[in-house]
């Protein structure tokens, strides 16, 4: 029921409130005497060269994509883990059946991971 989530809502509200308060507190209380050197982007004492928004390498996209695939895999494993005891209580055959289903699923995704490793997709050169 929704009432079970009240602690979660309170925590989210507190987190949001704390973040907004601390961010705005500095803005209101801090003295502001900017000059050219103070507002310059910090680059370890050097004068900044070029923009910070360079184009990313497409390799990062590959890592993000693989992350999403295995994120979704874990999402699907969660219901299996939660309900395994229920299936076992119903019958050992049912528990074995759902385990075969999830293991097959993991194996299918394992092919993708193996392919990525063999092709050197996870190496940065």
């Amino acid at each position: 029921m929704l009432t079970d989530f009240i602690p979660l809502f309170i925590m989210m509200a507190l987190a949001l409130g704390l973040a907004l308060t601390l961010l705005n507190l500095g803005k209101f209380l801090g003295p502001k005497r900017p000059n050219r050197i103070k507002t310059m982007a910090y680059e370890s004492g050097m004068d900044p060269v070029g923009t910070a928004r360079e184009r990313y390498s497409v390799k990062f996209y590959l890592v993000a994509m693989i992350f999403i695939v295995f994120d979704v895999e874990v999402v699907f494993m969660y219901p299996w883990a939660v309900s395994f005891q229920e299936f076992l209580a119903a019958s050992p055959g049912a528990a074995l059946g759902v385990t075969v289903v999830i293991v097959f699923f993991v194996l299918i995704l394992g092919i993708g991971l193996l392919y990525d490793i063999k092709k050197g997709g996870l190496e940065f050169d």
Partner: protein
Amino acid sequence: MVTPFLFFLLAVVAVTAALGMLFSRNPVSSALWLVLNLFCIAGLYLTLNAEFIGIIQVLVYAGAIMVLFLFVIMLLNLSALPTLESLDWKAVAGFVVAMVVLAQLVYMLASGLGALPTTILAEQAAATGDASTIAKELFTRYALPFEVIGVLLLVATIGALMLAKRKPI
């Protein structure tokens, strides 16, 4: 009670965030509006007793999918949106296809509405959204579609590798 109030509050914020995403000129703030929208939709799932879907919405969409979106924005390095070009045949074709898909969705929804049970008890509704109910259906009756999802994710992994590892010409 408090649930309908929460539902409409979240719905209003979700629509506002969606409009903010559409009208924002900066791609990164557009993406952040979308995060707010996805959070609100997760809240809507919670008010509808679908806890599992609600939490997964936050984990997968607001977490992983938005990371991918931000990666793509940084990959393309869009500082501001390019000005809109004049209407060409591709835009017209896209519009027609989108309208056909919309008509199909509306038709399916309209024809499916009659099949829905008119009244659902609160206890029945509360028992449908948790993970074990989903597991009972997903791993038994829908085991084959579930494995097909696995193949789909495999295709995504391999496709991303093919695109990213392609040697520059």
